[in-house]
């Protein structure tokens, strides 16, 4: 490690986040991201990493996508964040574009700056529309860390801040269990069910066939709204614009974040049906956010929507998904006692390892081999494997070559012998 990096890490501990800084050093990931381009990150010491974390799809179209830079620069010649109290050209244009490409029935867009804020908006809208308070979510769901959104998730994140739900307004049921969902909705007091289409931070366990449509039916029967959190599954990552459409569900509210601005100028969106967004007709000043739907972000988002809907992109996603799967299948057959499962829908993938924390050594070995992928915080058996939708064949091949080597080494780390045979330490 360079002197410069050591010095920097000290500063990071002093001024930013001592524990997090140390965590990564201890985990063997001494990454300080400097330059970034396409699907590659460059550490401040110059090492290249293929990014298959992508901040949960933020960099779906690659880091610093040149077209997004171009449109952001063009936008900056004329716009800034805008004034959130007034009708605004770019916000309305994006809202209209979203209504066109989101599932039928959705009309209004309410803007935030980050994903959690859009979840907040979804919950508030559902509560207003139904005049109920209860929100049902999935055990180990992750919808963000703001006041309401954090209560939908694991208590690990709310307890620290004494922010867990004490009033019983937030109910959690296990994933893929319809009976539990039905029990939660039956009393008829739930405002909404909020679902990540595929729970990301939980390691992408896949919804069983019919699970999500059945939840939607239960919602309808018991007067609750269906909130689809498409923060990680939207924008072509499943091979269609929205993952939820692949499962045949038309949600009442959809939450979009991360990739919608390609990491260039953050905004988030909560898209609602007219009923779910009823407050917008009654009291438009009920919610406000200065940075919500910043107009430069809207300009970038319009370009993101245009790019992701190009016909060539659809076929790229298919190639990338098929090719990586085929390669991962081969790798799995080599290390089948350790690498035990592949969860996949499009480029949304989770790799399962037969060890309670198996994804951590894999993450470290990948890092050594020039790949950055992150373990699932809420299920460290699983590595989140999230390639971008515009990856070239040669980069995918490069990636697989590195993954094969890294998994072999990690298997040795965990099982002993094998991968690291003969090497000291």
């Amino acid at each position, binding site marked *: 490690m360079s002197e410069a990096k050591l010095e920097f890490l000290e500063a990071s501990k002093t001024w930013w986040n001592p524990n997090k800084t140390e965590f990564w050093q201890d985990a063997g990931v001494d990454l300080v991201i400097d330059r970034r381009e396409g699907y590659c990150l460059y550490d401040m010491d110059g090492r290249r990493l293929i990014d298959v974390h992508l901040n949960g799809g933020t960099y779906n179209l690659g880091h610093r996508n*040149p*077209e997004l830079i*171009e*449109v952001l620069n*063009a*936008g900056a010649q*004329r716009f800034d964040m805008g004034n959130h109290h007034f009708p605004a*050209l*770019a916000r*309305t*244009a994006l809202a*209209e*574009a979203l209504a066109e490409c989101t599932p039928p029935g959705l009309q209004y867009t309410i803007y935030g700056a980050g994903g959690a804020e859009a979840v907040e908006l979804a919950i508030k809208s559902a509560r207003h529309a139904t005049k109920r308070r209860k929100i049902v979510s999935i055990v180990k769901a992750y919808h963000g860390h703001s006041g309401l959104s954090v209560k939908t998730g694991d208590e690990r994140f709310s307890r620290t801040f004494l922010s867990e739900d004490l009033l019983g307004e937030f109910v959690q049921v296990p994933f893929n269990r319809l009976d539990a969902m039905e029990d939660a909705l039956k009393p008829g007091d739930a405002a909404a069910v909020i679902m990540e289409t*595929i729970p990301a931070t939980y390691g992408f366990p*896949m*919804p*069983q*066939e*019919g*699970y*999500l449509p059945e939840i939607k039916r239960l919602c309808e029967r018991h007067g609750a709204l269906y909130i689809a959190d498409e923060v990680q599954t939207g924008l072509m990552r*499943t*091979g269609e614009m929205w993952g939820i459409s*692949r*499962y045949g569900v038309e949600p009442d509210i959809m939450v979009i974040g991360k990739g919608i601005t390609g990491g260039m100028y953050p905004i988030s969106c909560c898209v609602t049906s007219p009923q779910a967004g009823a407050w917008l007709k009654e009291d438009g000043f009920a919610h406000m956010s200065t940075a919500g739907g910043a107009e430069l972000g809207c*300009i970038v988002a*319009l*370009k993101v929507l*245009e790019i992701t809907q*190009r016909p*060539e*992109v659809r*076929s*790229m996603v*298919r*190639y*990338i*998904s*098929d*090719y*990586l*799967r*085929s390669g991962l299948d*081969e*790798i799995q057959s*080599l290390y089948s006692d350790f690498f035990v499962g592949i*969860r*996949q*829908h*499009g480029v949304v993938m989770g790799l399962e390892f037969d060890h309670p924390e198996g994804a951590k050594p894999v993450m470290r070995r990948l890092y050594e081999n020039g790949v950055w992928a992150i373990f699932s915080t809420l299920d460290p058996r699983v590595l989140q494997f999230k390639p971008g939708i*515009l990856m*070239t*064949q040669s980069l995918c091949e490069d990636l697989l070559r590195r993954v*094969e*080597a890294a998994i072999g080494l990690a298997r040795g780390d965990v099982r002993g012998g094998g*991968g690291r*045979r*003969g*090497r*000291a330490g």
Partner: protein
Amino acid sequence: MDAGIRRLVDISETPVAMRMRAELILERAGWAAQVFQRYDRATTQSIADAAARAAHARARDYAERVVRETGFGVVEHKVQKNELSSLPFVDYYRDWNFVDPRVDPETGLLEIPRPAGVVFALVPSTNPIATVYFKVLSALLTRNAVVISPHPAAHETCVDATRTLADAAVAAGAPEGAVQVLEEVSLPLVNEFMRSEKTDVILATGGTPMVRAAYASSNPAIGVGPGNAPVYVDASADLRAAAARIVDSKSFDNSVLCTNESVLITLESVAKALERELVRAGAHICDEGQTEALRRYLFHERGFNVEALGRDAAWIAAQAGFKVSPKTRILVTPIRLIGVGEDLSREKLCPVLGLFVARSHAQALMQARGLLRYAGAGHSAAVHSTDEQAIIDFAAAVEVYRVVVNAPCSQGAAGFGTGLAPTFTVGTGFFGRSSVGENVGPQHLVNWTRIAWPEDAGRRTEGGGVPRLRHRGPLPRAPSDGVPGEGREAVAPAPRPGSGPGGLSREALREQIREIVAAELRDLLKDGG
């Protein structure tokens, strides 16, 4: 959407957007090319056959449409060209094998075909559909992906024709995106394609600036220069037959094939008789005034007047200011000079033929050679003669790579009915500043890996059994977990394509990967001490 916002977001005319547009299409083509290389011979052939059938079925339709779109050419002749470059074209290459390994019987080397990858193919306005057919089918036969860039004048029909072939190919199992077409074309966009590192080879047929740009792109290119074919009729020729062939050739599709005869060179002893035969075959011999009028009309300061491109003889005469019978098939303009100082000795993509009468056989050869030094180097020439020595003398004198004998040059040099490879890209080789001196075909879109043993290890023969390549076929479709009928359970049990005989079985593959891993481990051990 607000118009101002729409304009702001539409950056499609910026260099960045152009580059990204090219990259996206080329990246998709790159995927298709890599997957295509997993295909075996039978599948490859059936894909090419399917595309050729679709092409053949629409040959007339596209001929009619492209004549309407460009405003020139002859429908019937275009039908012929389109048909010839579909089924017969694929048939011509049926016995070639661009997929399996082969043994070179001379050297005993074992050779493995390696497709180029992504072919960027420029299509001219003169033979648009035939060229689309020819280039797409050449790519399919060799398991390459191709991106067609049509000439703006024939854009609409070319886009449609390419899509027809693409759909047929994909329906027959080709990887999606193996055949793509530029839906809008502009010079800057085409340049982005030519310059991109994701283009493996440029197949450039068209005007000189385009061809030179292809070579200047820094990418491998197969570009061909313009034609300007001399046709020599000597005293031994069957004059009637020669005249008929020349008029047929020169009027074929109103002379838009770059292999068309440009200047007829003959000898004093037979000139008068030949002129009579030309007239009989449908030519009009121009007087001096008419010749001058044509010279002025056809050539501007910037070169050939494209307005005349592919128009018929009567139309051109009228534009130049004189009348000929509407039945006139070609206009013959006598000239006394070849080269600088005589515009009518330049390439004329219209049914106007120069006529030069030489005083001797030696002078005729010199003038023919001079014509090609002036323009059209490396391209084509024709000779009508029964004297074999005269023929070879002529062929050796002119700096071209194909000389057709007693045949119409338009069709003959392009390979139709002569045994030359059928093509719409005529290699002009070193004479004509090109990388290929043959009629370009699928064979130029493949390189071969040569596997060499020590000479004393004994020579391999084809009969000794050539090991087969493991063609794994199309990529299996990845599961979409949780989607009814598309999840892991639905997808996984299907047998993997290509795991049968000849393909790489799962076991063998595992073994291979194990070996690689073991080798890597050994290296690691070495490094790690």
